[in-house]
């Protein structure tokens, strides 16, 4: 079998999840001590049965929810709230119905200006070249400050550039309700990218799209990620999609999948597994697909 459970430890991970546990009010706890790291520039796909906590994990990584136990480090700092360098794209695009596509794409910049250049969420990343082909280096404090003070015209230029890059500049003045699902999702991606994120979190972003649009958008997303050296965490229910997207695949198994945990270590062992992937190697993908199917079949 090509797949294997692994524990990857990097020297300077973009994301480090340590002994994570979480529970929604009134629901059973999730994860039971989940620990893993995502290397800078790595693409990690997350798969799992329904209710295994895929979307909850993404909400935690986005800083939208706080862990019940354990902690999440992003860029070496404990995550306490949403961070402007992390983009989030949801299946239900999350566009404002009362704003045009252009205004939606510009929303992150508007929110930042709302708080002022020294405001609560002034983003740390410097203004990067829109079509740069090389991964971005770590940001210096001076560049961070300059980025935080980015002016409205600079924001406007970034918005227009991303509208064009995502192929939605022709519908920039339209309301989200008047464009296709694929165009809405392109706008959601552009909105995240305007803030120059170094991490992108995607929660089944293409699940509601037709096959052709899904393939187009997935290819575009991976192309932009590679260009900009972004770290990607991609939640999907599709094993095939996980195999295309992920350098590694995190398999979350529901509580019913394993034996009842007797302790944190045991729970961690039985509730998730990490698989190394080689998206370009068809033989590896075939073997891994079989292993993931078997694991998900056992979990459901």
């Amino acid at each position, binding site marked *: 079998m090509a797949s294997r459970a692994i524990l990857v430890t990097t020297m300077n991970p973009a994301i480090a999840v340590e002994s994570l546990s979480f529970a929604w009010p009134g629901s059973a706890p999730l994860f039971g001590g989940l620990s893993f790291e995502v290397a800078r520039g790595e693409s990690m796909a997350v798969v799992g049965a329904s209710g295994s906590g895929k979307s909850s994990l993404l*909400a935690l990584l*986005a*800083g*939208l929810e706080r862990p019940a136990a354990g902690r999440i480090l992003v860029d070496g700092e404990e995550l306490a709230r*949403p961070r*402007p360098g*992390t*983009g*989030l*794209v*949801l*299946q*239900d*695009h*999350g*566009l*404002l*119905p*009362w*704003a045009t596509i252009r205004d939606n794409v510009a*929303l*992150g910049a*508007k*929110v*930042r200006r*709302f*708080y002022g250049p020294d405001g*609560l*969420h002034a*983003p740390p990343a410097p203004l990067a070249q829109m079509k740069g082909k090389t991964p971005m280096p770590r940001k210096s404090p001076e560049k961070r400050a300059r980025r935080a003070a980015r002016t409205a015209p600079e924001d406007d230029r970034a918005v227009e550039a991303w509208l064009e890059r995502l192929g939605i500049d022709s519908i920039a003045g339209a*309301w989200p*309700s008047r464009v296709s699902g694929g165009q809405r999702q392109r706008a*959601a991606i552009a*909105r995240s990218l305007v*803030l120059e994120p170094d991490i992108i*979190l995607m929660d089944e972003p293409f699940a509601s799209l037709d096959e052709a649009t899904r393939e187009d958008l997935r290819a575009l997303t991976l192309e932009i990620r590679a260009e900009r050296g972004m770290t990607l965490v991609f939640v999907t229910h599709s094993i095939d999609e996980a195999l295309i997207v992920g350098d590694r695949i995190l398999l979350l198994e529901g509580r019913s999948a394993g034996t009842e945990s007797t302790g944190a270590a045991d729970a961690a062992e039985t509730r998730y597994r990490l698989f190394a992937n080689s998206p370009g190697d068809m033989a590896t993908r075939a073997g891994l697909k079989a292993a993931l199917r078997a694991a998900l079949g056992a979990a459901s």
Partner: protein
Amino acid sequence: MKRRDLLLATIAIILVWEILAVAVNRPILPAPAEVALTFWRELGRGLPLHFLASLGRVAAGIAVSVLVGAPAGLALGMSKRFDRVFAPLVYILYPIPKVVFVPVIFLVIGIGDFAKIAMIFIILFFQVLVLVRDQARAIPLALVASVRSLGAGRRALFRFVYLPACVPAILTSLRQSVGTAVAVLYIAELFATKWGLGYYIYFQGSTLMDYPAMYAGVVAMSLLGLGLYFGIDGAERRLCPWTR
């Protein structure tokens, strides 16, 4: 609504009125043409001032109810804790016909302009509060989460999500209750004032027995309600273009 449809509806109402006036054939129901001539004449005799007095009161009532009701509704819709505390109160007070509070308001506030505006406020306030609260509650969590992920805290969520989301609810609540507000205005203007369409209609009809002038006042009050209705429609077209 199309202008042609409105014109046809107006013609239909005038026709029915004309037929009824001929059938009844008494001074209590003058023909539309006579009322139109009287209306034209009364325009030079103070009817516009009565109209403006009524418009001022109803506009003030609308403004205060939106300024108080919309933030209160947003606060309840945005905060589960607030809503838990105040929801039972709203649940009890909302279905009570607010007209029953007219005597209470007269007793507590008096019978001046402030009381008249307060009555309109009470009618509109609950409507605005409930519709805005329900609208704020109905905003999808995914939408709020995605905007929070862009760095929006509570203030930015209010500015970019909750406030614009609730504008259609505010306008809908006004549209639903502006008719009742004008009706209550008529009752309120029967007391302690010499300005306002309510006073004008009552004075012309019951004291002077000038029925064409009384109907001219009724037409003016209808135009006031209609104007407010069209004004709200116009505001919706301007403020909520995505709903079209």
